């Protein structure tokens, strides 16, 4: 597929320039409020911007061309890089910032594909990767595989990390099913937090592979080796957003059709991690400070203007640090240039940036204080992040998990509660709009004379917020009181994965679908699973509805399925698609419109009469019971279906009156909001009649 002159063999290959892509935007909100004003890759970890670690690693691997893809805050990224050593003549690689308006990794990849910048296989990393792993072996393995088969389109580099590791993502546990013989990843799933682990491994996987490893002990460090084919895959599927849940999952699912494979390379030496959550930030900083990422430690002084020196107990001090005689700075701390610490202050396990002023009798524990921050006398700071130029007054108490953003001022004597996020800026209305505007200071939060307000996560981010609290609770049980638990933040990928569990819903249907039993029941369940999966996939990749229809028909014929089963499959697929769109950030209304409007024919094909329509709605309703914003979705769906004449008034009424649609409390709740539509439709159909009559009159 790819225009590749592979056959010429080794020597040519060695000359090939090694390219890399840094995805500088995270497309996530986990570092709010800091990422409002600055891109994640420029946040400092152990007083060095994250992207420096990434570039440094790429340079150490021998990359010759780097493209930085950036969506949000491109200007800042560009300015930073233009002033850094990576764009100077002496840089080991050429670096180019690719501007795009992408809102997801998928967009960025499609952008790249369009621009045709990648000549051969390339490394794809995030702008927040910290690694020191040797890479030759991984590249070699990848190339060897490519030689053999063009279908090996990607290699994921994973770091072995044991059952529990602070750097491993405890929240969404990524599970890789790997064929140890070929290192092929044959199944990927994220285990939801707080659920008992359960994987849905397709049958073929078990059939086709003699031996499989199921591994949950791997750190997914976000380092992938892509081929141009893989990039083309991204382009083929317009709605893939996330490299794991969409891309890997999608490619693996299509294995039967296209035979493309994804491989893994498991590293068990060196360090590799991604700073993708606050918790990871905390853990990675600890790793860097305790030299796990050696040689990328503060005392390597990677940046030219750094001058850190290591002292006993992993204490790093830059030149010009002023410590009062009675102050104590204990192990695993980093102090930046020209920072001063007052009499009687105690600093433990903390990172303090440059030019900070820490007052007298201050206690700082496990905190991250970035450059130019000020902390007044007698203040206590525990496990918090204080961003650049923020100032904390005297006698304050910043509790665990608090995040104080850039330039915030906290007045004297204020207590910042746990997990509070304080900022001066907020995002302007509209989700995709990344412009920020100054918010109104809230004296209740920052005290009189302070500046800043509490950032409450708005409706779209509600899930994340929940996830954060829930995550914190869970973690408090397992890792008791080590402070990092509060750093848990929400995760949209995670919710997203939830919606993709293919079979978990099928059980609930049997109750209403029909009274099947035994084998037929199982057959039906199987058909349902396959059909709804394939429709869902089709929808997700925005295939032509006729195409989906064709596939469905084929499946129906092979399984000898009945019409009502098809309706059920279609209903469920749509419901899933809508739910996934909503979690992708759309409102219920938009999601319904995007999912249904282009695919009207699909629905029309399976619902013709009023009875069928009622059944379809019933299936939809039942499925939506479990979905987020189910009632809202149902309202919009009903509205759209009715509006586009896919369902007529009779069908609606039949559904409404069907006893099965009010069988349980949940069902009632879901359909409650739809009441007005039904009323209106019922009325409308009468109106229509009236109109017709009227026209007849004329």
């Amino acid at each position, binding site marked *: 597929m790819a225009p590749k002159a592979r056959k010429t063999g080794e020597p040519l290959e*060695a000359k090939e320039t090694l390219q890399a892509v840094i995805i500088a935007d995270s497309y996530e909100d986990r570092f709010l409020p800091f990422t409002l004003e600055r891109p994640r890759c420029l946040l400092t970890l152990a007083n060095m911007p994250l992207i420096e670690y990434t570039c440094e690693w790429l340079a150490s691997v021998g990359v010759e061309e780097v493209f930085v893809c950036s969506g949000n805050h491109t200007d800042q990224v560009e300015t930073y890089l233009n002033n850094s050593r990576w764009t*100077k003549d002496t840089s080991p690689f050429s670096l180019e910032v690719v501007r795009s308006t992408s809102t997801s990794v998928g967009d960025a990849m499609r952008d790249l594909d369009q621009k045709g910048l990648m000549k051969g296989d390339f490394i794809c990393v995030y702008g927040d990767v910290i690694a020191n792993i040797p*890479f*030759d072996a991984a590249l070699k393995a990848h190339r060897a595989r490519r030689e053999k088969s063009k279908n090996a389109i990607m290699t994921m580099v994973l770091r072995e990390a*044991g*059952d529990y590791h602070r750097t491993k993502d405890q929240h969404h546990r990524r599970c890789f099913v790997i064929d140890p013989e070929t290192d092929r990843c044959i199944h990927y799933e994220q285990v939801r937090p707080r659920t008992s682990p359960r994987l849905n491994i397709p049958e073929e996987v078990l059939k086709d592979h003699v031996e499989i490893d199921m591994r949950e002990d791997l750190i997914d460090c976000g380092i992938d080796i892509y081929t141009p084919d893989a990039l083309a895959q991204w382009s083929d599927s317009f709605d893939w957003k996330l490299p794991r849940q969409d891309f890997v999952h999608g490619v693996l699912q299509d294995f039967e059709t296209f035979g493309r494979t994804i491989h893994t390379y498991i590293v*068990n030496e060196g360090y590799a991690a991604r700073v993708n959550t606050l918790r990871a930030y905390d853990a990675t900083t600890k790793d860097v400070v*305790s030299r*796990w990422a050696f*040689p990328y430690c503060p005392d390597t002084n990677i940046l030219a203007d750094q001058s850190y020196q290591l002292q006993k107990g992993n204490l790093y001090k830059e030149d010009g640090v002023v410590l009062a005689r009675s102050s104590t700075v204990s192990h695993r701390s980093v102090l930046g240039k020209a920072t001063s610490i007052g009499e009687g202050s105690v600093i433990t396990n903390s990172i303090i940036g440059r030019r900070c002023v820490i007052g007298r009798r201050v206690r700082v524990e496990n905190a991250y204080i970035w450059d130019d921050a000020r902390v007044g006398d007698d203040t206590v700071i525990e496990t918090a992040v204080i961003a650049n130029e923020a100032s904390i007054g005297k006698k304050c108490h910043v509790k665990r998990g608090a995040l104080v953003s850039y330039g915030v001022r906290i007045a004297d004597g204020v207590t910042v509660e746990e997990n509070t996020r304080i900022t001066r800026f907020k995002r302007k209305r509209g989700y995709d709009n990344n412009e920020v505007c100054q918010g109104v200071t809230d004296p209740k939060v920052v005290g009189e004379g302070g500046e800043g307000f509490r950032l409450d996560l708005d409706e779209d981010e509600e899930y994340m917020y929940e996830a954060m609290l829930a995550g914190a609770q869970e973690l408090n049980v397992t890792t008791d009181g080590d402070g990092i638990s509060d750093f848990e933040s929400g995760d949209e990928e995670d919710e997203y994965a939830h919606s993709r569990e293919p079979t978990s819903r099928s059980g609930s249907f049997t109750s209403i679908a029909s009274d099947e039993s035994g084998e037929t029941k199982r057959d039906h369940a199987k058909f349902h699973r396959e059909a709804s999966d394939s429709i869902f996939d089709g929808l997700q990749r925005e295939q032509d509805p006729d195409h989906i229809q064709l596939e469905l028909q084929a499946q129906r014929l092979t399984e000898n399925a009945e019409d009502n089963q098809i309706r059920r499959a279609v209903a469920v697929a749509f419901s899933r698609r809508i739910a996934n769109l909503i979690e992708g950030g759309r409102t219920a209304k938009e999601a319904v419109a995007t999912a249904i409007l282009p695919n009207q024919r699909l629905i029309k094909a399976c619902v013709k009469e009023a009875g069928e329509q009622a059944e379809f709605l019933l299936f939809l309703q039942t499925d939506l019971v479990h979905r987020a914003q189910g009632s809202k979705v149902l309202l919009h769906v009903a509205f759209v279906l009715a509006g586009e004449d896919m369902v007529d008034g009779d069908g609606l009424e039949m559904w409404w009156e069907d006893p099965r649609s009010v069988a349980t409390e949940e069902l009632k709740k879901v359909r409650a909001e739809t009441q007005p539509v039904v009323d209106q439709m019922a009325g409308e159909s009468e109106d229509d009649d009236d109109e017709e009559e009227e026209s007849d009159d004329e």
Partner: protein
Amino acid sequence: MPSSVVGQTPSLTTFLKSLKQNDIENSIELFISLLKRRQIKNSRPCAIATTHLLLRVVAEPKRKWDAQKLIARVRHVGRRLIAAQPREMAVGNIVRRVLGVIREVAERDEDPLTDSEISGSASPITGEFQRPALPTRFSEFSPLHGAAAMPHNMHSGRPGTADSMAMEFGGTPQRPALLSTNASYAGQGPPGTSLFSILQHPQGRSPMATPPPGTQSPVTGPSPSRRAIAGEIPEKLDIKAEVIDGIKELQDELDVVDNQIAESALDHIHSNEIILTHTSSQTVQKFLLTDARKRKFTLFHAEAYPNNHEATHATILNGAQGEDDSDERWKPLTSLGITVILIPDTAVFALMSRINKVILAPHAVLANGSLIAAAGASTIALAAKTHHVPVVVLSGVYKLSPVYPFDTDELIEYGDPSKVVPFEEAEFTDKVDIVNPLYDWVDCDLVDLYITNLGGHAPSYLYRIVADHYRMEDIDLNAKQDAVVKKG
């Protein structure tokens, strides 16, 4: 091994290759980042890379150097390199040696008539750096034993140096001139020298035979004949060309240093001795191999877990391999019929009573005779002291640093703790601080003999070699800058 790999990861080899294409500033930056990333590490690769880089700096095309400018330039580059990785002291050593070469050339340039070869009597300043090419090794002065003197034709008999400068300069014809230089030098040298030399060598050798203070490795000293020719050229010396020659000689010294050290092997290791060594070192392997061809001995090899055990195992199993640029490989000692016993570092004390000699390879040697070596060396040296086992250190002069250790902690690098406790042991690593020092500090009291490419020396004598090889002005590269500024 690394050659078969795709060849993407930068290393010494790729650095040397890239030197030819890159411009100078690029090369300097690249070397700095390689040092920082520890992709060039250990003394020999660092030294090799530094000489090549400085050669490029000096040979910068379209640039006319006068001595002061050149010194300033090299100092500037040197400072940056040292700042990048202060613990690789070989880098600083080479920079200082190159500075010494430049100064020497400059001084000759300023006053060609005082050139020692022409006038026959060197002024103390110039004389110090116009070292004669001494024909003999000094290993026979080892305090450990009085072995027979080197055969005279040792140079030509040296293995694997056919292409080396040693052949060019080491030949006998130049010798007669040396004696006079030596004599004249001895007369002008510090009064204590001869007495010191007598005390130095318990065998009571004649002062004439002791290494004269002007000793430098034979290959580095430009040959008198060349000197003479250079001196005859009226006025202007081509500084650039002269310095380039000097650096090339330095490179040649690095090439042959192991062989030169190995030459004295027969004087130090005797039949049926039991030797203990530590980590995999090219120098030590060559040394032992040279001896193994003639004699049988038993070797205990401490494996230097956790940082170097793999290399040690490989050395024992497959023979030594060049540290980074491995074109040549040597057979393992066992293939020559030597019994090699691999032991963990912890067993050293228990075995020490049976051992006749400990051979160590340092990472760096400091001016006072103490050394920095792979972690574990200190234990070995202390155990040896307790059992009164002589400790012999094999070190090229390039490892000898003029730095005097004030804070020994600073010199020790701390590495990646995952070597000690694997990263996967998360439960453990979370709660415990793990340190993995890469080097050990061994005090000069614990060392009995240094064998360099110049011969054997007592630790207390090293300061003298330091004085010979490095200029006072260059010892502190930063401080001198201030002095220059003040002068200017």
